[in-house]
């Protein structure tokens, strides 16, 4: 009664949508910087490379983690959970529940990158000398974050121990 309806199907749908959006999110530029020397568009990965400097490397690492590794790890983790539930795997149920909780907790932090971009775009408007504008990639990136969060929300962790309990019933 309190189960999430059509959990597997909905989670798969959101997850596939997130995976599709992940490609343009990384290929398209997220930020266009216009300076006196012309305009330059940077993708997330280019941003990581740009930020990498002797003093700025922690920031670069944060962007790398929050924007590239976390979204892809989330997509992979959810796909693993879904497949294991569908195949009726019984092993490491506890670990899989823990994985689900981590994914659920970590999801919102990917939005950091979107906020950083939005703030920079709002703050750096020294026209005509310099201006920063969000580029289409950012839209897809935000879509990835939102879609993975929706996927996590529509996944019912009870499914993880469903197969385990049904097996117990059969053995009993």
């Amino acid at each position, binding site marked *: 009664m309190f189960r999430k*309806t*059509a959990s597997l*199907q*909905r989670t798969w*749908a*959101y997850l*596939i*949508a*997130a995976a*599709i*959006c992940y*490609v*343009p999110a990384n290929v*398209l530029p997220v930020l266009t910087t216009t300076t*006196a*020397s*012309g305009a*330059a568009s940077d993708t997330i990965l280019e941003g990581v490379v740009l930020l990498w400097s002797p003093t700025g490397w922690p920031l670069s690492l944060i962007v790398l983690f929050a924007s590239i590794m976390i979204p892809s790890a989330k997509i992979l983790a959810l796909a693993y959970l879904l497949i294991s539930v569908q195949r009726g795997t019984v092993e490491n149920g506890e670990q899989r529940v823990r994985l689900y909780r981590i994914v659920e907790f970590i999801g919102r932090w990917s939005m950091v990158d979107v906020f950083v971009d939005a703030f920079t775009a709002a703050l750096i408007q020294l026209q005509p000398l310099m201006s920063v504008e969000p580029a*289409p990639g950012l839209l*897809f990136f935000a*879509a990835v974050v939102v*879609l993975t969060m929706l996927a996590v929300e*529509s996944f019912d962790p009870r499914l993880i121990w469903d197969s385990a309990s049904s097996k117990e019933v059969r053995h009993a």
Partner: protein
Amino acid sequence: MPDHDPTLPPVPSSRAVPKSRTRLSLVWIVPIAAMAVGAWVAVARYMSQGPEITIVFKSAEGLEAGKTKIHYNGVDIGTLTSIRLSDDHGVVITTAQMAPKTESFLVDDTQFWVVRPRVSGANISGLGTLISGAYVGSEIGRSKKRRSEFVALPRPAGGHLRHPREVLPDEDARSRIARHRHAALLPAAERRQGHVVRARSGREGHDRQGLRRRAL
């Protein structure tokens, strides 16, 4: 309600059968929409790309891959995408992504050069590039023959450029310059036709360097 009365007929036992959820959920619109938008963006990006050309420069000073623009009459018609040395380190080979519908610009006698600040005698030019950085200037040729590999002029052609067709060098100069290492970068067929020569001869009389090379 313990065990039921044996005198009554047996009551059929019921079992809950959960409604099967095999029906396709409406959620599948989400990935389909994502796919459609992604495909649309990909197509739009592909359509907004023009031809790719190669321009050979003597020096890449002031040029930056991904930043340096190619201008024609002040209009941005392309961007340099990569800069590398030739195999013999003699020249710089750049590739440029041109704007869409620029195919008609890229003909046989189209010329490119770097615009950077120059002060020579009474002439000062390219002052705007002091702040903006160098860009690549171009002069669109009149030929009908398409081309995708160019050798840049060492200095701006300017508006007083004579049309290259009027100053075609003699056969001897052609073969001499065709042997020049820049020419080795072009396909053999084009080399034979003396494209390099034509590209260079346009600034005859304006360019001492060119004259010196010819004298060699």
